[in-house]
């Protein structure tokens, strides 16, 4: 009798181990804390990561650059038109322009990666995808292991949950989307840092002061002197829109630094589909192993 019970315990023990692993994985990786932060980050960037908005940011930078390129020679040719605030801005603009354009290029290049991640199931659900089946299997298999019982009541749910875990990443396109998400996370590594956000905040202050000097000092002087300055006029006309667009972007970048760090400390997105498939396949395989007949 004892030998028979031991022989039926093998599958239950194996299932219990897989269940335990599934249940503990989100705890071990801190997913219950980090996944909601990832969801928050995705949400914060949602209004900004459209093709139209990203093209708009690039357009704004190009518009400012066109105004600076227009004004610099005009100011140089007319010593009467001067503004210390503009001089500072004009001096700093090449660095700001290069950095901001490169940053926006990086963000735009990863828009599809963002879309891929955003189209995955809500990040908040991810820990539960592991914990719920893990706990169910652990309870069932634990009972089987302790009592030495084995039967359809254990193997059927284990197999069903195993199939569900295997199917889920295919159903939501995780094999395609997760690597693109991983690429986006890699690209954002240099963007989502406190230092970089502080630098961009500083650029914003310089740009605001510079545009103010253009709008309130330079442009009126050029108009009085009858000097055409269409790019500058266009910038002044668009400036409110520039602020309306860029301020939330800086806000989202600033608010997402901690959230990004939390998500980045999770295992690579590339591995995520396998976190479902591997334990799912194990559950199915163990469930399908033939039961040993009791003597």
């Amino acid at each position, binding site marked *: 009798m004892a030998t028979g019970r031991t022989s039926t315990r093998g599958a239950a023990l194996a299932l219990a181990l897989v269940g335990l692993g599934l249940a503990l994985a989100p705890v071990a990786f801190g997913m219950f804390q980090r996944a909601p932060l990832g969801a928050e980050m995705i949400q914060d960037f949602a209004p900004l990561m459209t093709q139209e908005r990203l093209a708009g940011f690039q357009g704004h930078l190009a518009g400012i650059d066109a105004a600076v390129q227009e004004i610099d020679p005009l100011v140089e040719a007319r010593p009467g038109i001067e503004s210390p605030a503009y001089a500072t801005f004009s001096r700093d603009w090449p660095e700001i322009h290069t950095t901001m354009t490169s940053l926006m290029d990086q963000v735009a290049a990863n828009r599809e990666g963002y879309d891929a991640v955003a189209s995955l199931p809500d990040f908040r659900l991810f820990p539960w995808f592991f914990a719920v089946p893990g706990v169910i299997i652990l309870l069932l298999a634990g009972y089987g292991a302790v009592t030495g019982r084995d039967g359809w009541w254990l193997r059927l749910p284990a197999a069903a949950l195993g199939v569900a875990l295997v199917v889920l990443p295919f159903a939501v396109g995780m094999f395609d989307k997760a690597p693109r998400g991983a690429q986006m996370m890699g690209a954002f590594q240099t963007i989502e840092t406190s230092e970089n956000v502080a630098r961009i*905040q500083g650029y914003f202050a310089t740009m605001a002061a510079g545009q103010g000097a253009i709008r309130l000092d330079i442009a009126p002087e050029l108009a009085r002197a009858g000097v055409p300055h269409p790019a500058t006029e266009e910038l002044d006309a668009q400036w409110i829109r520039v*602020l309306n667009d860029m301020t939330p972007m800086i806000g989202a970048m600033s608010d997402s630094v901690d959230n990004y760090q939390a998500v980045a400390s999770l295992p690579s997105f590339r591995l995520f589909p396998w976190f479902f498939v591997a334990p799912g396949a194990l559950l199915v395989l163990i469930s399908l192993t033939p039961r040993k007949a009791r003597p």
Partner: protein
Amino acid sequence: MKLSGPSFRLVAAGALLSATLAGCGSSDDGEEASGEPLVGTFRLDAGHCDAKGVTGSYFRMIQPGGTVEKGGYFLNPDSKCPDQSYSVAVAGTDGGLVTGTFQPGPKAAFSPQGDALAGQITRPGTFTAIKFAISTQSVDPGTGEELPRPEIRNDDGVLSGQLTAWTAGWNNLYFNQGSPKPDGSEKGLTSPVEGTYDEDSGHFELSWSSTIEGGPFDRFSGYWHLEGTFVAAK
């Protein structure tokens, strides 16, 4: 349900304890709050600036890593001051800050362009081409936390208090600029509200700084200086 003798005593003792604890926790009666509350309107003198400096009510924005005394400051190109780190304030429709109540501004707080419309405390001023305005909100627009009514106390000519609900609006965004912050802390450069009060003339000066948490101006700080005449509520 009728309470028996021991149960009644227990409930009564509990109620007494609750009342005692509530009293201890109140900001009105604790050791930190001293002096008498000044309930009424802190009517603002308009800010004025020239080459000599600034008088009246004004605001400065300090960049991350800066200090209230030395900056670096965010220069407001729309400021008419020679030193554009100063943005002067002009009293709004209520004449200034009213304590003991909220001055939340209109329901539609922003124009489509992002200009803030609240005008009870101060007239909306321009900050980098977009109007900014001050209100005191009962609920923090950023966190949804309930905020206390503005309170200023006078202790023999020395003012203190809390202006946690002091909120700036700009470009469709809100920035808590109160002290202490909504969570009760004094993070970053946030400093207590303090000032002076002349009971004979009613002249007051109040100042504090408050560091922004989150959003595009995360870790920037505002320094606020209000000056004018206190008029007690009737």
